[in-house]
């Protein structure tokens, strides 16, 4: 259960998408997300879905792997959809007691649902096809400009990549700690919210202590391997734009222009 969270995990296969420059993918994701909120017609949602479908197909990541990530936001999805569904005023099409579904509500809820699903799948496509290292390299280089105004870009990206590396390890550790405490009769499932919060203490304390120990070990291991910040570092996989990255930027531009343009064209 807890181990099946796929967000932020790299799926190691080879594909065009995997080989794209991370900066392209970062900007691409941003463009895709922004475009989702720019467009407001069924046609364009269809287009976005098709584009995403093609990208997933190109990425060689099994669709099942992508939808698994969706399970984790299912509750969020249900809440936001039902809020929109029941609380939007308008022409009622269905009524049960105080629950009322309006036509507008239905439309908004559906659109919201589609948006959220596309949003999550779009961004997980990026994390699934980009190693955390590439991702942070991409950020580091993409955000180089900010370094001049004192933003520690290298440090931030290093922190991110380490965090991503340790997320699965810490999740597994949480699972083990929970079991160890359950074996001593700890109960995480029953009781009111305060009792439940109290029941988290036996999990959080060992988890935090473990995390600090790991951090300490890791810092030492990095130092032993001559890590001393971003100065004077070279790259094993330096970011260099290839022809395909140019094409990708071009397609991205087309897509975004299309999305913006669609606002001015009457579409269903």
């Amino acid at each position, binding site marked *: 259960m807890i181990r099946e969270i796929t967000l932020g995990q*790299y799926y*190691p296969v080879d594909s065009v998408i995997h080989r794209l420059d991370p900066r392209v993918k970062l900007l691409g994701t941003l463009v895709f997300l922004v475009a989702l909120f720019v467009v407001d017609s069924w046609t364009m949602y269809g287009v976005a879905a098709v584009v995403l479908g093609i990208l997933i197909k190109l990425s060689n990541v099994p669709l099942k792997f992508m939808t698994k990530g969706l399970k984790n936001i299912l509750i969020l999805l249900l809440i936001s959809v039902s809020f929109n569904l029941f609380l939007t005023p308008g022409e009622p099409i269905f009524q049960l007691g105080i629950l009322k579904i309006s036509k507008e509500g239905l439309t908004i809820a559906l659109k919201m649902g589609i948006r959220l699903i596309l949003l999550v799948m779009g961004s997980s496509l990026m994390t699934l096809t980009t*190693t*955390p*290292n590439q991702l942070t390299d991409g950020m580091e280089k993409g955000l180089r400009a900010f370094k001049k105004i004192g933003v520690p870009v290298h440090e931030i990206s290093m922190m991110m*990549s*380490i965090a*991503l*590396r340790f997320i*699965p*390890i810490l999740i597994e*550790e949480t699972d*083990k*700690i929970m*079991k*160890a*405490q*359950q*074996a*001593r*009769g*700890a*109960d995480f499932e029953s009781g009111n919210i305060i009792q439940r919060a109290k029941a988290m*203490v*036996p999990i959080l*304390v*060992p988890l935090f*202590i*473990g995390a600090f*120990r*790991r951090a300490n*070990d*890791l810092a*030492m*291991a*990095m*130092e*032993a*391997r*001559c*890590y*001393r910040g971003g100065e*004077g*570092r*070279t*790259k*094993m*996989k*330096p970011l260099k734009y290839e022809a395909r990255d140019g094409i990708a930027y071009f397609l991205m531009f087309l897509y975004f222009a299309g999305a913006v343009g669609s606002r001015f064209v009457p579409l269903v």
Partner: protein
Amino acid sequence: MKIIEALNLVYNYIRTDENDKVVESTRALDGVNVSIESGDFVCVLGHNGSGKSTLAKLINGLNLPSEGTVLVSSKDTRNEQDLWDIRKETGMVFQNPDNQIIASVVEEDVGFGPENIGIPTEEIWNRVNTALEAVGMTAYRKKSPNRLSGGQKQRVAIAGTMAMIPKTIVLDEPTAMLDPTGRAEVIRTIKELNKTQGVTIILITHYMEETVDADRIIVMDQGKIVMDGTPKEVFKNVEELKAIRMDVPEVTELAWKLQKAGMPVPDSILTREELVECLQKCLPKQVDFEPNFVKRKPLHIDITDPVIRVRHLDHVYQKGTAMESYALKDVSFDVQRGSIVGFIGHTGSGKSTLTQHLNGLLKATEGVIEVNFRDNADLIKTGKNSKNVYKGSGSNSNVKNNHKNSGYEGEKDGANADTLKGTALNDSIESGQGTGFINIYDTNFNMKQLRFKIGLVFQYPEYQLFEVDVITDVMFGPKNQGLSEDEARKRAEEALKMVGLDSKFWKKSPFELSGGQKRRVAIAGVLAMHPEVLILDEPTAGLDPAGRDDLFKQIRELHDKVGMTIILVSHSMDDVARYTDQVIVLDHGVLKMTGTPEEIFKRYQELESMGLGAPQMTYLIHDLKDVGIRFEDRPDTVSEMADCIIDLWKRYNKSVKSNKIDASGKEAN
């Protein structure tokens, strides 16, 4: 050529309070003088806290000496401008494989070091390729470290240092957290690097067997070097080593015992081959002389009074999908009340999954687990179907009489049973037999109560310790059982006494304790709930030899005094042979064998095909058999083996003498 030189090293660990005032100062190294020759394979031995890890960190310049000097290729680690060169030259590999891999892809991690020292991109790739090749991990270069085994992760870590083209690699207990397969893998790799690439190796370890092939062994105790020499020179001093809480390889210990008994065995035998060769000369070849030897444990036990009965247990992940995989498949076995049962199997064989089923942390996909405790009362939720205790099929009826008479129980030493008599735990366990089998998957079965009856202690105590002090932590379980503060405290004190933790530690924070003490607290935390069965998952992982022996002594005592049923999950065949009555062997989720250690280790070749092995002594018996020296009874500990051989030798000598007298008598006539 001297590659590393340490002169009069002193290192103090200093703890300060908020105002930078020194609260405590511990001397970890105390006047260490050592120099290491280029290309050597050096092992550093010493119990936990002897200063060996501190020495390692000083060599790499991670810590700077409080007094004295460390020279690496004549460069002082104190000179800041040389520090990066020193670290380039001396790679370090640490104990925990997870905590030293930085990147999420194997090859990127190997490239991390070269990136840091500014190597050009193309050269980084060359180095990464060569380094991965050298440790045999090329096939895994695109994989995520999370998907590798412990041994593979350590090889990646070694590759990471190799990519810096070091002259020396310092490995700080790189095998402590690995299973036997992973351990062998890592040791093979570093030996290979030493031989083919001429890299100087400094290996810090607890496993004596790993040191036998070294060029040199350095033994440390209390921050000082107490012995320094070739394995032969060092392991000659069996008594001195034992005095500083160290072990020697089992074969060496056996040879030493034989020598002490007067047998013509030379000093410091390190390998089985040497010992067999020497024994061949002084023991009879034929089977005329049956050794007069009584085994401590029965050769076979019938399970007459099972406390747990497992039938056709399946655990399937993602059933019905393409990813369907069996963690456990059709597992059936019984656990005899009051016995010590060993679960063995390689990592991923399903041992841990199985133990988690026994106390209900995991639920089986298929199959039945039945329990039969002396007190089953709480296990059924009161409610509509509360009288659903069902009778076991067949064997249950004759339980009552057989229990005390079984050969196993008869050997229990009556004399030690007194110390704990009268404690509540003792009463609850000693009184009465099982009261009938209950299926734990019955709808009205109370799973939470089961966890109190079958206590499970996980491998790392760090996963369960969380309270401000030891005693409160141990009280956590009893309080969850619904006991009052006083009652819980009484239980906790009793449990802490049982695991032999001195009361001066009870008010300390559990995080300040040593590894062995933490484990004791963790075990006490489970014992305080008064379980009838105690499951220990790798209880001695990461402890030094003396800590290992101490803990096992305590577990053994617990069993002997209180008659507790103990399930021991272990990688160490020697421990299993020494301490268990019954063994269950798992391989890929399937139960492959069950029987006494005797019966299991007879089939050592099958065990090997599963990536396991057999105790050292089993191998020795077979080696001896190959040269014609047979033992019908199969001793499985060093002292049993020694008794057996000495007895054989004495009687053989006597008969040789009397034959001679006979012969000379005849001549005279």
